[in-house]
């Protein structure tokens, strides 16, 4: 399946070697693209990562199970909650703990709020990548309103550290539902504006339609998941296919598109934001208002999880996010592997799609795949 890009003779003088990043605003985070261009056309692309490598998987092997809980959220900076949930899920599964129903609802609320916030940031990113920074200003501001909700609920804006193995860390604050509804209404209004300004925009369409087309047959060999996959016409979503938390009790539509280009991917994500708001409203209205939110836990200071291995996955904004946990019965994890969708999207896929693209579109293409470098290198 792997087809290497055609070799280029750099000494011919026809080509220009160009580095985008790590210090480059057109790059989604701290990574870099080594581009070889011929005129305005990119003929080769190599992704370089590792600028944010902290060795999480190694660090987690020398922390106890509870000590890992604050660190996992740092793996994907703009979207920490999925890490928290998945880490909790794998540990609970191997430890034989069932988190209470109320916690499951709160977790779902958390994940969907996070998804909305992350998509808002992405929406601004795709606007900014193509020169519409007004949308970026608007959406990042609205993301901030969601961060306010997180701050109120969890005690922190960015790294919430709220979903803890066994449940969640606290009940929802007084009056949270009302404020959450209010923010959702604001975001919904903003989304309508964004549709007018960005999606019904002749220049945006001119730039994005046909850009970075992913053929259907490329999807599986390249491990493409999430909205990128759905934009290529696959109706696959872990929330529907393997419902976790309370997704089987929520009503939402699976969004797909067929064009599989940057515009389609943006449109799928845009539509999913509406579905997210719909789910959030259901969560707020239907979640249990009392009851326990934490399962009975052992003393976490020397918590030993029985030996075993498992893989838990969730549908994050970018696709299949998974935690693979191997334990050996000690107080430490034997091995944890974090499967982030950015890993395949930003390296194998990006290197493939970049070839033949205009150099000015590289940033937009990169954003349209929605990748987070810290999650690639961990």
């Amino acid at each position: 399946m792997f087809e290497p890009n055609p070799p280029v003779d750099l000494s011919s003088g026809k080509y220009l070697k160009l580095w985008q990043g790590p210090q480059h605003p057109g790059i989604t985070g701290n990574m870099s693209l080594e581009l070889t261009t011929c005129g305005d056309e990119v003929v080769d692309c190599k992704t370089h990562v590792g600028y944010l490598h902290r060795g999480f998987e190694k660090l987690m092997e020398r922390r106890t199970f509870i000590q890992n809980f604050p660190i996992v959220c740092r793996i994907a900076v703009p979207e920490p909650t999925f890490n928290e949930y998945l880490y909790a899920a794998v540990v609970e599964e191997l430890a034989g703990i069932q988190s209470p129903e109320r916690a499951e609802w709160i977790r779902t609320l958390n994940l969907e709020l996070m998804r909305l916030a992350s998509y808002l940031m992405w929406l601004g990113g795709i606007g900014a990548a193509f020169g519409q920074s007004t949308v970026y200003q608007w959406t990042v501001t609205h993301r901030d309103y969601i961060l306010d909700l997180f701050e109120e609920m969890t005690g922190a804006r960015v790294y919430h550290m709220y979903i803890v193995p066994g449940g969640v860390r606290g009940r929802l604050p007084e009056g949270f539902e009302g404020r959450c509804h209010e923010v959702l209404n604001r975001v919904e209004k903003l989304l309508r504006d964004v549709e007018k300004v960005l999606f019904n925009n002749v220049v945006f369409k001119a730039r994005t339609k046909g850009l970075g087309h992913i053929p259907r047959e490329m999807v599986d060999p390249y491990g493409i998941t999430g909205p990128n996959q759905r934009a290529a016409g696959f109706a696959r979503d872990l929330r529907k296919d393997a419902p976790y938390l309370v997704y089987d009790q929520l009503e939402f539509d699976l969004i797909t598109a067929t064009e599989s280009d940057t515009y389609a991917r943006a449109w799928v994500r845009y539509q999913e934001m509406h579905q997210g708001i719909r789910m959030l409203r259901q969560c707020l209205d239907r979640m249990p208002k009392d009851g326990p939110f934490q399962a009975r836990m052992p003393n976490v200071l020397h918590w030993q999880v029985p030996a075993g291995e498992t893989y838990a996955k969730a549908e994050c904004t970018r696709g299949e996010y998974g935690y693979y946990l191997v334990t050996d019965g000690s107080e430490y994890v034997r091995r944890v592997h974090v499967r982030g969708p950015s890993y395949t999207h930003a390296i194998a896929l990006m290197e493939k799609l970049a070839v033949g693209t205009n150099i000015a579109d590289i940033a937009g293409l990169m954003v349209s795949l929605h990748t987070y470098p810290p999650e690639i290198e961990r």
Partner: protein
Amino acid sequence: MSLKDLISPFYVWQRAFEKPYTQKRPIEDRPGAPRYRGFHMNSEDCIGCGTCETICQNHAIDMVPVEGLEQRSGDSGLRPRFDYGRCCWCALCVDICTTRSLRMSNHYAWITEDPDAFHFTAGTDAMPWNQNSLGYRRDDDYHLLVHERIDMQALGAEESVAGFDEVMKGYTEEQAVLEADRCVECGICVATCPAHMAIPDYIRAVRQRDYEAGLRLLYETNPFSSTCGRICTHRCETVCVMGYQGDPIAIRWLKRAIVDRVPAERYREILGDEVVENGRKVGVIGAGPGGMSAAYYLRRQGYAVTVYESQARAGGMLRYGVPSYRLPDDQLDKDLEYIRSLGVEVKFNTHIGRDVPFRQLIEDYDALFLAVGLNQPSALRIQGEEHPRVLSGLQVLDDVASGRDPGVGSKVAVIGGGNVAMDAARVSRRLGADVTVLYRRRIEDMPADPEEIHESQAEGCKLVQQAIPVEIKNAASTSQVTIVWGEAEMIADDKGGRPRPVLQEDRMHEETYDCIIAAIGQGGQLDFIPAEYRDRIEFKWNKFVPGEYQQTGLPKLFVGGDIANSRADAISAIEDGHHAARGIHRFLTGTLDG
């Protein structure tokens, strides 16, 4: 290209006529949310257990001594110091805080140019956020620790009064592991334990089901593990950090959990039995916990140890003062037999001063350890005390332990509130009597173990508090005795001691019993020490005042046990013995001057 796509983007300009999103004064107007995890705060409830340090995955917390902190039991005198070059505001330290003293403020701004400045000791250093009322607190329904003690299986009250079977059945392995799992291993208890046992370590051994290691740990400081695992006064549990929000760890029972799982036959294999004789000999007076403990540690270091005991069996107060439903004989023997198996010689039925002169001992041995205990019951010294139906608590217990019938009758009054009184009461219950305990103070003032008080009540002993016996009547009868007691009022002590009872003469009661068991206290008997030695020894009231390493003014003489300390419990006696053994070893190897 549709016209709509050309026109629609101009919609952005609508925003220009609306209010900006911008926060006018973000620095002033946006405090952290009520639950915000900002900088740490610590209240004076902190005891410096260091659990926050243990859980911190970033090693952001140092436990540092704090100047001017009042030294109190159960407080390490350390306080957490936070390094904001490390802290990630996960608040696990707040969640785990055993006393709930650690909290977070909603303050979040700290900007300096000095990277070395980001340290502070929460609660003691003056920081701008110390008075913040908002910030992260642990939710009441959210726990990272287990606060409920694992119950131990016990005989029901009816079963237990029916005989002298051991009441507490001991933990099963699973229960012990679960209970041991609750421990946070802070080590605060070690200082409070008179013997300074390696409590967190042996609890960890229980958790890891490594009983051999556990036993070795126990014997490092206490050769009466089987005994202490049952009847220790467990001062450690009173300071256990888990007690602040729930039940303290059942430290005593976990100790028992180790010894229960190691059969006596394996002791020598696990703990070793080889002794390298060093050619010196040490005498020990009294085969109680203090004496035998000293004998054990001295023997381990190669001394030839001879123990003199006035009774027929070893164990002292443990055997004659503690009934077998609390401490079965075989368990005491398990401890004692191992000590004797190392080559400790015990001479029974030997009274010092009567059978062997003290002078001879002090001349024959290189050093002498004396732990004769308190075996003289204090008299009531009230009118009519010489009535034949007035018995001493110690005597009753001794009788029962020796298999004699103390003849308490069917209606008994016990005077006193200590363990001896409780034991006497519960023994009487087992002998079929109806028991009333008269105590001068309130139940909460009783020196007896709370468990014993609770169990004796469960077994049907009536506890009458604030009752001062005044007179004993009915001298004519030989089978019945009448006691007159007056109600007491508790009066606060000016000097800050515990409240003292004062007799109210107008509220007197009179009641007739088959016997009255007096158990108000014991004193010691030291007449066997010749006067020329006595003068060189320091006393206070009726007790020795030992110096460093339990040494007395008579350099060869080391003392310990109830006769030399104010706590008068087994574990203190054991530590005295152990400490004296250290002292004797130092004395005989020349590192302790006489």
